[in-house]
Structures are given as structure tokens and as C-alpha cells.
């Protein structure tokens, strides 16, 4: 199988499955499982090819840029596809039982629409990570936004609908900004193809405006502080598997496009000042999100604010990877954190779903003794928490280690302070939840039974978040393929 086929399978399988699931609702569950299997194989194959032969490209129907659609997979794309596939598989498994176990016709009605939308979202993400021009990225971004908003609205509650409307408004206007920027770029450069833009290496006031418009739209979609306001209500009020998808995957799409724009298409515009501004917004997000998470009354809101904070870490990649010394360390560290966050956050939202299901609510102060009824879920929450805090050997640790190392090597100690403070705050909000869970109660309430697969999926992802730290050399090697930043992955070396 060539890489073209692998890429085609990655986009077409979920798309066709989505259409089938819409037409034949009964098949939704099996279609999702089948899709998960096919995508898993295709991603593994594509990864092998990228490792062996470098960056893979494919011109759809043989039409090249600037007119045709080009699919392109480098190390970064493959990493994003792998993360998407992992989370996708987990959600497909978890949701097999999630809706049924509510024993309620409403829930079954929701499930009818959940599967096609979920598969469509998967299509959008895969297409996004394989697109090689900024207009196709726009199209996939719109698909992603549409699927995300509709999935959120599925919850059907007043709070969810309010949040969905707000999300829709932000998402649409952000897309508009982005599209304006694309238009300006096309007018200036005559192309929207990423490699061609990189080759032109142009700058000038019009491009500055274009990039500012696109960036503004993208950081609103990625919920970077101070444009994060829409995220907590949206992520906290969705059904559990949807919350997980939104937090783990959807917000990562626009972040990925930002990386492509600033590091690949217009690296000349990435001045130190710009990099520092990105970093400062990221730092503010870390602190603001973490402090807010500390004071949330509900578990799902706590997790949602934690997402705001964790997204902040990703933006520290800008000031650290833009520098020559240790740039690649920061680049791979930031992207490892992205994967770590995806696994850990999915595990957490799934756990929260289990707790909601068992206890009927997620008010943190009333969760005393939940350990005794849901030991596996609480254990999963704790493990995922380890990764968010960045305790070794978790994947969160590996990512932070590289970022910290790069920051110290470059003398940018202020980011070191922010990262360490952020870790401690994360520890505080996670322990706040765990302390309630460990509190002894005299008469534990009998909980609603939880299907084993729902607890098992959460635990598996949490374990993955912890042990994937050991995969960091592999991830770094993968990210090397076609990376826009260079440099060693180990610092120092004066010791024999």
C-alpha cells in the first residue's frame, strides 16, 4: 500500500462510515469500531512510511498546486494523526455503552446522532492534519467546528444549548477572520500552498495584517487566554465522550494550524517579540486556568479550566522553539505535551462521566467516599493527574522536561518559573478532588452500576498517559521528519 492509499483511507473511511451511520442508525456502534480498526492500521502504515522515506505527499487526481488538492504527511502530521486515532479508538469503545447505560429513550435518541457526528469529526481532523494549503485547512476547520458544535448541542440541556450557541458564534466569526487572512495571503503571494509560501519567504505590512487576522481567529478557536471564555461551559456541559473529544482533539486543530503558519509558512515574521507575546499569553492561560480550576464547584468545570491551563503550555513552544539553541527540544517537548494532555484529559472526562453516572452529580464537595464505589475510575483520575502535573515517568513529564531544559539552556528562566508554578497549581486542583474521594463516609450510597468498558477505557488512557513518557525518544525521532526547527535533542554533554 502506498502512502497515498493510507492517506485516502484515513479520510475516506470515517467519512463513508459517517454517512452510513446516518442512514442506518443501528449500525453506528459497529461502524465506529470498524473505522477505528481501519484508521489504526492506516496510521501505523503511514508512520512506517514516514520513518522510512521521509515526508509523504500526494496530489489528489494528479493536480498539483496551486490549483489541485495536495495531501502531505510529515512527522508532525503523523503524530497528530496518531493522537487522534488513539483518542478516537477510546471514544468509540467508551460510547459503546455510554448512551445505552443511561436507560432512557432520550439517550438513545442522542446516540442516533452521536455516531455520524463523531465519525464526521474524525474525518475533519484527519483531513486537517493531512492538508498542505491554508485554504484546505480553512475547509477542514469549518467541518471541525460544525461537528463540534452539533455534538455539544446533543446534550440537549439548557446549559449545553447556551454554551453551544456561544461556541457557534465564536467559531463562525473566528473562521471568518481566518478566511479574510487567507484571502489577503492569496492576493499577496498568489498561492495558498504551505511549501510555496515558505519558498517565497515574503513579508510586508499586508502579510502582517493577514497573519494577524488568521492568528486572531485561530487563538479564539484554540481558546488561548484571553479568548478562552467559551470553553469551560462548552466542555463542561457536553456528554462525557463529547467533552473528551472537544478537550483532547478539537482545540488542538487550530493550534496545529498556528504552528504551520508561523514556523513553516512565514518564519520570517516570527520575530522575538511575537514569540514572547505568544508565550506571555500561554503563561497567563496557565496561571488563570489553574487558579480558576482550583475554585470550581463541579468536577467537569474543574477539568475544563484545567484544559485552558494546559493549552497555555503548548504556546510556550513559540518563544522556546523559535530560538536556535534547544529549539528542537522545545518543539518536541511542546508537541509531546499535546499528546500527553490528549490522553490525560480524555481519561479525566471519561472518569467524570463515570462519576456523574454513578453518583448522579459531579459536585466536588459531595463526592466524599467516591473511591469506595468507583475505585478504578478514581485511580484513573489520579494517574491522569500525575501526567497533568508532570510527575515522572509520565508523558507530561517528558514534555515538560524538554521545555524546561530548552528554557534553561536559553536563559529564559521566566518560563521555567511559570511551568513549575503551573505544575504545583495542577497538583493542588487534582489533590482537591482526590482528598474528597478518599474521605471516609459511614454509609456509602449504592451507586448506579457502571459498565466495565467505561471504567476500563478511562483507566487504559490514564495508564497510557503515564507510560508514554517512555516513548519520548521515539516521538522526537518522528517529529524530526520534516521539522521546521533544528537542533540537538540533548543539551550539555561536557560530562563523559
Amino acid at each position, binding site marked *: 500500500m502506498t502512502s497515498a492509499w493510507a492517506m485516502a483511507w484515513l479520510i475516506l473511511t470515517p467519512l463513508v462510515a459517517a454517512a452510513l451511520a446516518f442512514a442506518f442508525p443501528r449500525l453506528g456502534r459497529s461502524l465506529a469500531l470498524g473505522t477505528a480498526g481501519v484508521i489504526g492500521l492506516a496510521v501505523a502504515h503511514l508512520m512506517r512510511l514516514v520513518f522510512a522515506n521521509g515526508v509523504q505527499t500526494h496530489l489528489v487526481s494528479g493536480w498539483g498546486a496551486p490549483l489541485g488538492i495536495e495531501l502531505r504527511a510529515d512527522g508532525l502530521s503523523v503524530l497528530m494523526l496518531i493522537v487522534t486515532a488513539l483518542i478516537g479508538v477510546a471514544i468509540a469503545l467508551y460510547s459503546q455503552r455510554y448512551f445505552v447505560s443511561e436507560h432512557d429513550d432520550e439517550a438513545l435518541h442522542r446516540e442516533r446522532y452521536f455516531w455520524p457526528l463523531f465519525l464526521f469529526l474524525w474525518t475533519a481532523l484527519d483531513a486537517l492534519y493531512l492538508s498542505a494549503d491554508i485554504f484546505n485547512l480553512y475547509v477542514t476547520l469549518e467541518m471541525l467546528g460544525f461537528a463540534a458544535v452539533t455534538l455539544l448541542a446533543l446534550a440537549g440541556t439548557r446549559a449545553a444549548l447556551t454554551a453551544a450557541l456561544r461556541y457557534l458564534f465564536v467559531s463562525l466569526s473566528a473562521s471568518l477572520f481566518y478566511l479574510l487572512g487567507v484571502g489577503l495571503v492569496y492576493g499577496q503571494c498568489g498561492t495558498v500552498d504551505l511549501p510555496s509560501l515558505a519558498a517565497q519567504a515574503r513579508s510586508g505590512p499586508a502579510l502582517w495584517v493577514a497573519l494577524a487576522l488568521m492568528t486572531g481567529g485561530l487563538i479564539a478557536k484554540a481558546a488561548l487566554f484571553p479568548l478562552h471564555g467559551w470553553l469551560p461551559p462548552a466542555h463542561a456541559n457536553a456528554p462525557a465522550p463529547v467533552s473528551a473529544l472537544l478537550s483532547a482533539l478539537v482545540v488542538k486543530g487550530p493550534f496545529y494550524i498556528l504552528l504551520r503558519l508561523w514556523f513553516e509558512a512565514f518564519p520570517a515574521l516570527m520575530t522575538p517579540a511575537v514569540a514572547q507575546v505568544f508565550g506571555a499569553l500561554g503563561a497567563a492561560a496557565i496561571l488563570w486556568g489553574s487558579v480558576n480550576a482550583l475554585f470550581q464547584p463541579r468536577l467537569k468545570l474543574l477539568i475544563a479550566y484545567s484544559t485552558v491551563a494546559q493549552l497555555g503550555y503548548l504556546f510556550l513552544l513559540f518563544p522556546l522553539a523559535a530560538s536556535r539553541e534547544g529549539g528542537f527540544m522545545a518543539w518536541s517537548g511542546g508537541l509531546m505535551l499535546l499528546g500527553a494532555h490528549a490522553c490525560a484529559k480524555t481519561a479525566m472526562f471519561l472518569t467524570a462521566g463515570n462519576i456523574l453516572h454513578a453518583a448522579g452529580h459531579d459536585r466536588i464537595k459531595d463526592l466524599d467516599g467516591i473511591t469506595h464505589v468507583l*475505585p478504578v475510575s478514581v485511580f484513573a483520575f489520579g494517574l491522569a493527574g500525575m501526567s497533568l502535573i508532570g510527575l515522572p515517568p509520565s508523558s507530561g513529564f517528558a514534555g515538560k522536561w524538554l521545555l524546561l*531544559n530548552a528554557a*534553561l539552556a536559553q536563559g529564559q528562566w521566566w518560563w521555567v518559573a511559570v511551568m513549575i508554578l503551573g505544575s504545583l497549581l495542577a497538583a493542588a486542583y487534582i489533590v482537591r478532588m482526590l*482528598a474528597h474521594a478518599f474521605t471516609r463516609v459511614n454509609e456509602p450510597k449504592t451507586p448506579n452500576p457502571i459498565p466495565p468498558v467505561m471504567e476500563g477505557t478511562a483507566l487504559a488512557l490514564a495508564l497510557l498517559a503515564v507510560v508514554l513518557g517512555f516513548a519520548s*525518544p521515539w516521538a522526537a525521532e518522528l517529529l524530526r521528519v520534516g521539522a521546521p526547527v533544528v537542533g540537538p535533542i540533548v543539551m*550539555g554533554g561536557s560530562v563523559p
Partner: protein
Amino acid sequence: MNLHSPILLGILLSSFVTGLVIFFLKEESHRLRTWLNLLGAGVKLVLVAVLLSGVYRGEPYTFAIEFLPGIPFALGADANSVLFVTLSSVLWFCTTLYAVGYLEHTPHRSRFFGFFSFCVTATTGIALSANLVTFLTFYELLTVTTYPLIVHRGTREALRGGKIYLTYTLIGGAVLLLAVVWLHALAGPVVFKERGVIQALAGTRRGELQVIFLLFMIGLGVKAALVPLHGWLPKAMVAPAPVSALLHAVAVVKAGAFGIVRIVYDVYGAQTAAALGVLHPLAVAAGVTIVYGSVRALFQDELKKRLAYSTVSQVSYIVLGTAILGPVSTIGGLVHLVHQGIMKITLFFCAGNYAETLGTHRVSEMNGVGRRMPLTTAAFTVAALGMIGVPPLAGYVSKWYLQKGAIQAGEEWVALVLGASSLLNAAYFLPILYRAWFNPPPEHWPAEHRFGTWETNWMLLLPPLVTAVLVIWAGVFAESSFSPLVWVKLVAAREYAP
């Protein structure tokens, strides 16, 4: 990797797998859980014995897999590791037996023993780490796995103690992380090696290395309970007695002290550290801690609290020995790593026995316990006298070497500190012994339980007796070929080899 690496992994897995399996056991399968616990602890002991003889013969033990880019997850066994791993596996065996007896008929035992085993895995991991990043990994895992043990009872007080513990240790861990990352940014991957690995940088990066050393000592000092970072230790006393025993003698506090030993000898190297001028401040901090802990212990009526402050003081003997340059004080400090462990675990076992059998928690309630529980009190007496430094017990050996080492190094003030501390030790232990043996017992104990033939449950009685015998043996046979002292002399000889 060589043929020996399975032993290193086996030592870790013997408790890790045990813990995993125990998590999935039903609460009622008491017998199976007990056998699994003892089996795991027994297997670990055997493997450690094999390791011990191998390292003595000079065989190399290494194991490494990829972890961070360019930095492996590496295990190894040098003389230092073996010292700590032997201590922890022997005392784990005793504590397991004790904990089974102690927790009979209480809820959530599967959870308890699961985390208990993980905690020991983390401790042995700390002992066997061959580089700084692996050490950091197990050090943080220890923090995490100890928390559920401290809050095990789930009471408000326990949760508060747990919160204080985590606040201290996680902040300490963050400082340690900063030190580790910074050192890596300067020096590249850091492996543990006798006489240190950073000599090359000592000339050019003096200031930075001094700051990093300070960060190391803060990060490790939290667990080692160096004043003023000791605040969590007395609060963590809400944990069940076997946990306290483990915390004070083997796991948390020792991990901090062992970390300091590692940093001074195997990362900086004692000579380099002395040249950087960082050892003297450390010695002063240890001296202050020794006196302060003893003074605070004097005023505690609650037995476990008194023992906790005594730990604050005694653990710093190890730090003090490490901070004074010279082979003799190295011997004194390292040997106390073992001696303090066996003495303190005996004391905590006994304190738990009094609480479980008679319901006495306070020193003022201990009148005549010696008549009601002669064996327990005998063990307590041996350990307490050892702590004071009465010959020929274990504590005497430590103090003798520390004293001699300090005088050789020209640090006479240390002799004063040690003398004062011994007097204070006597002042807070001897009244307990007097009460226990010579005062008449009260008519009713606060909450008495009867356990048939023996003065208490045999599973509670046997461990302190065994460890008390070890206290005597470590002192009387200090110069025989099977004693901690002889092993420590081997370490010191390697560190100060020309």
C-alpha cells in the same frame, strides 16, 4: 545489559506485581492477601541477598531502557544502593507482618496493601537508580504512593495531614526537578559515580553549581526533614502505625537522606563539594536540625509525636556525617542510615503495640507498661538506649564514628552538637523507660484488648523483637564480617580511594 539485569528488575517487580495483584483482590480474601504479601517480601529478600553477594564480589549490575531522549531509565547496584536496598527489604518484610496484624478487621485493606507495596517499590527504585533522572522518577513516585497510606483512615485529621504532606513534598519535588533540569542543561546526562561527575565544571560554573546544590538540598531536605522544612513530619503521624514505621525508618525520610548522600558523593563528589564551599553550610543546617529536633521532642507528650521529632533529629546525623569531609565521618553518617532505621522502626512498632493493646498514646499514660507488656517494652528499651548512644548498641557505633570524623576534620563544634544531642536523647527517652518499668500500672488501661497467650497479637510482637535483636547485633558485632559497618567501610574506601 547483562545476565545480572533480571535481578535488578526482579527486586522492583517483586513488590510492584504484588501490589497490582492485591488491588484486584476481594476485601475478604484475607489469607490470600497475607500470603501474597509475605511471598513478595520474601522473594525480594532472596533477590537482595543474591545482589548483595554479587556486589561484594565486585560484579557489575546494570539495566537500562530508553526513557527521555538521550537519557535512559537506568538501574544499577553500587555499594551505596545495596546498603539502602538491603535495609528497605529487610524492614519491609518485618513491617508487612506487622501491618497484617495491625490492620486486622479494618476496612479497605486491599487498597492499603496495594499502595504499601508500591511504596516499597518506589523506595527500592530510589536505592537502585543509576542516574539522576531515574532517581527523580522514583522519588516522585514515592510521594504519590505514600499519600493514600497517610490518608488511609479517611478522617478529617488524616486528610489534613495528607494535604500538609503533599504540600511540602510536591513543592520539594518541584525544587528538586528544577535542580535536576538545571544540572542537565549545564552538564548533560548525569549518572551516579563515585567521587562525582562534575569536577570539570567546578572551575568555570562555580556560582551556578552552588545554587543548584542549594536547590538540591531544599528539594531533598523536605523529605529528610531538615529544619525548617520538617513541618510535615509530625503532622503525618496520623497515619496507621506501620505506615509511620515505614515512613520514618525506610521510605520517605530515608529517601531524602539517601538522596543527599547521592548528591554529595556520587554527583558532586565530596572533594568537589568541599572545594565549592557548599558542605559547611549543610553541616550547620544538620547541626541545627539535630539540636532543634531533640529539644522539640522533649516537650511532646504524645508518644508518636515525640518519636517524630526524634526522627527529625536523628536523620540529620546522616546528613551531618555526609557534610563533613573525611572517610571516618562518611562511615558514621552512612552507617546511621541503617542504624537509625532499625532503631526507629522498633520504637514505632512498640508505640503501635501500646496503642493497639492498651490504648495508650501518651507518655503520661505509660506507667507500668513494662509489667503488662514486658517483651514489647524490652524491645523499646533496647532501641531507646541505642538512640541515646549507650554502648554496645547500634547508635553508639554511629556516634563514635561521627565524633571521631568531626575531630579529624577539625570541626570541634560537631562534638558539642553530638554531646548535647545525646544528653537530650537521654532526657526524652529515659523518663519513658523509668515510667514503663518502675511506676506501678494503673487499674485500667484506656482501651485494653486481650490476645490469648502472648501479651499482644504475635504478628505485632515478633517484628519489634526481631528488629531489637538487630539493634544489638549491629552494635555488638559491628566489626564482624556481617554488619552494616563493614559494608559502609567498603563504600567509604571507594569514595576516598586515591
